[in-house]
């Protein structure tokens, strides 16, 4: 096992190097870079810039160096934990990402728990009562959830949140409490706001998990050991939970790995609509304005978390499912 993990870790290095190169090329591809945006803000201050000035500005941000040099510069700093400098926000990328990380993690975990709490019981129910009215009902609801654009759901929930509960539109706290130190009241206020993003982001994932679980469980339920157990008179509840569910649940473990990258990308559009202080909108802005370091660091972080997440999933799977062994 230890051997296997070390091997996996070593193969991650070339993978990430290739990814970093692709990321760097991708963010350089579209025309126009951040310097033009910087000049735009100078224009708002009533200044006009000459060609020489543009060159001088580029020099300030290392943009006058050759592409390979820029790449190496960026990569070297990234490895050392310095993700670079956001030209748009005039702040270090590390600061920008970390100040948003707390709430991003809270929302990601809350919506994941919501997804599981909803989809696992429904998935099991649908499999056990295949083609029953409940199965059809939940399938329809789940697919509706999958098909509804998240931002639309967000807008609708925001409307009802305000008209029914008086919860202010958007944000994670009521304005009066946003700056207050942590207290019970503030925690309750967070919960009162958290349910909207939790439901909005959570519902999108429920349908697929319900369907996967249902399909896996159906496969298991038709196997001879289940029939045997049933013939021997094992109680139906115990029968389902003791073995088939445990086997059917393994796909979730392989999706735990996906959780890591979603911590960073969050759900950008929903976060913009709901005005959440998460990293998603920041990443979208970075890409739109081609804020090279910020966008690059985001994409790189996403890739690293994906690769690490996959490894974690594989290890967990091996632990949970005794049939899987790596030699």
């Amino acid at each position: 096992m230890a051997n296997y993990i070390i091997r996996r870790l070593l193969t991650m290095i070339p993978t990430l190097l290739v990814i970093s190169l692709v990321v760097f090329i991708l963010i350089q591809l579209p025309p126009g870079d951040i310097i033009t945006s910087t000049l735009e803000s100078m224009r708002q201050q009533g200044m006009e810039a000459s060609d020489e000035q543009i060159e001088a500005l580029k020099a300030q941000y290392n943009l006058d160096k050759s592409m390979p040099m820029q790449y190496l510069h960026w990569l070297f700093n990234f490895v050392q934990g310095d993700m670079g400098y956001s030209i748009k926000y005039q702040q270090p990328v590390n600061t920008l990402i970390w100040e948003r990380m707390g709430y991003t993690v809270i929302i990601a975990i809350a919506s994941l728990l919501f997804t599981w709490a909803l989809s696992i019981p429904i998935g099991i129910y649908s499999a056990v009562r295949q083609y029953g009215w409940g199965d059809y009902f939940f399938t329809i609801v789940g697919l509706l959830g999958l098909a509804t654009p998240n931002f639309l759901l967000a807008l609708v929930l925001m409307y009802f949140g305000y008209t029914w509960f008086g919860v202010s539109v958007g944000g994670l706290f009521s304005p009066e409490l946003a700056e207050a130190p942590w207290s019970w009241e503030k925690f309750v206020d967070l919960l009162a706001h958290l349910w909207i993003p939790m439901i909005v982001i959570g519902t999108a994932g429920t349908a697929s998990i319900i369907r996967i679980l249902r399909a896996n469980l159906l496969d298991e339920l038709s196997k001879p050991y289940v029939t045997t157990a049933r013939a021997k008179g094992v109680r139906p509840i115990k029968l389902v939970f003791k073995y088939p569910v445990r086997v059917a649940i393994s796909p979730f473990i392989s999706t735990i790995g996906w959780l890591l990258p979603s911590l960073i990308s969050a759900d950008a559009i929903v976060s913009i609509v709901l005005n959440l202080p998460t990293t998603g909108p920041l990443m979208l802005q970075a890409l739109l304005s081609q804020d090279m370091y910020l966008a690059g660091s985001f994409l790189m972080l996403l890739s690293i978390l994906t690769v690490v997440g996959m490894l974690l999933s594989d290890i967990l799977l091996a632990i949970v499912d005794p049939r899987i062994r790596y030699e």
Partner: protein
Amino acid sequence: MTRLILIFHLIVTSTAYVSASEIPTDSWPVSWSEPAKTASELNLTVFRQAPSLKARVESGELPPLAKRLPNDPVVLEPFDRIGQYGGTARVFHSDSLWSINSTEPFMTIDAAAGQILPNVVKRWEYSDDSKVLTMYLRRGVKWSDGSDLTADDFVFLHQHMMLNKEITPVPYPPWRDMKSIKLDDYSFRFEFEKPSPLFINTLGQLSDFFIIPSRFMRQFHADFTDREKLIERAREAGYISWMAYFNSILRWQRNDPPLAPTISAYQLTHKTPTTEYYVRNPYYWKVDTEGNQLPYIDAVRADIIESAEVMAAKAATGQVDFAGFPTRTQDFPLYKLGEKSAGITTLQWSRMTGSDIVIMPNFTIEDDRLRKLYWDSRFRKALSLAINRDEMNNIIYFGRGVPRQVTVNPSSVYFEPEFARAYADYHPERARELLTDMGVVDLDGDGLRNYPDGDELVLTVEFLDSEGPKAISMELVIAYWREVGLDMRLKLVDPALQQSRATGNLMQMTVWHADRTSDILFPIEPFWFVPMHLGWEEAHWNLWVTWFRSDGEEGEQPPDEIIQLREWWDEMILTPNPARRIELGKNILRSNAENLWSIGTVGLGPQPIVVSKRLKNVPTQGYWGWDNRFAMTYHPATWYLEQ
């Protein structure tokens, strides 16, 4: 119901045609159109302060009011009545920057947005040749950290930022070619290379960016502090250079202190990713007519929101106290609903845009066939005559805009009614004739006109959809142009792309809004009328601008009419003679009306201003635009929250 509303709007239109353009000056206190009076002129001797400040004085944290106010504070008359102290105003991020905080340039602008009035600069004199501008400051004005505002703060920008090779790698005019001289603590002088009689317009409109808290900022400037240590501090704070650190402190781009002090009514204290927090400046140097120190409101909380829909929803449900910058014309009905359910008030201020849409064909585009079309005035006239401006006005503006060509506002001294009427009528038949005359006809029978050589003719308009109803207007224009057989496609771009493609001479056609059409900015920045500017607003005549700038070395030589335009403008900004200036300005506008270098649709439209139930003293009418810096001329420091 819809039809009823439409009929109602049609009735209103006829009156709006006259009234929307000019606001009667008695809509505001008379004192807003005159140089501000001071306490001694009004015999005010007793001053009072907000209860929250009083407590801080008593605890010894702040000096007493008399020590904080100048000897002779400026008196602002509130719009309606003397306000109450206290409260936190809720606004959106863009309004904290542009509206609710007071904008304090050297000089300021009057309520009717036509003249320059004193502000921190109490008095100024031009030399006879308009090359030397001497300015005298009010005494005893203080920065929000309690330090004195002196002439040093007015020459610092020029001497230590504009001429500093590290902060400004390549200096540019007028800063490059001028001198700034401090005479004593309260007077200073700008000396220009050429006569600059209109530089005070720049100072009145923009110069809040030019006043620098020099004493405070010296700690962060390499000329005044240990260079190595400063660079070390900047690195530690995460900045790429000391200049980036300096700018970010000065322009409030940081989340936490150090942040530069201000002479405005509110000081930024800190930011989170979603909110900005401002508190009142205890040293603000203006009082109301009873001697109460302004501002009335204690603090401002600004939500940083990116989605326009969310902002509209929040404004309509009364969750902000003031919204003016992000509100959209097409959301008027939503705000009107909010008046009933949330008790908000929706005011209609007048946008200062001569036209909300300026369609600019790119005369210097690489494509020769397109150029040939654009250069033919028949083509431009056809494009204009094909647009049904009355219908646009009814559909988008509820009949409350003014259908017109791109030209200055009616209140301008340069205005003539015929400039606004030029080719602004709806004559699709005439448009078709003009196009057919040019040989632009439908050769392949698909209902759309072709290039004279038979190829498909498609006009692509790339534009940025912000400030004003651009996208919704252009969608109507597609239909109008198709009606006369022209195929036009729209392409939305993001700000960075707009900037790079517009300045890169890559756009076939683009759209902006015609601000700079008042007497404040038209003479110094006639973007739409004279080739004198390169920027994201324009894909108009870049190579001609370059030609003028490089004295004919680079770019392309423009046709004679254009050279004439530029000669008029060159003289216009130099002449100290106002009558001659007006004559030259009218020449420029007349030539534009005849030649139609750009095409307008509807201007002087209503700007929705959403005011909460509790915010008082906001004028019912006002001009809204870049020319008068949005709310600056309506003194937001005198607005208050009813407790």
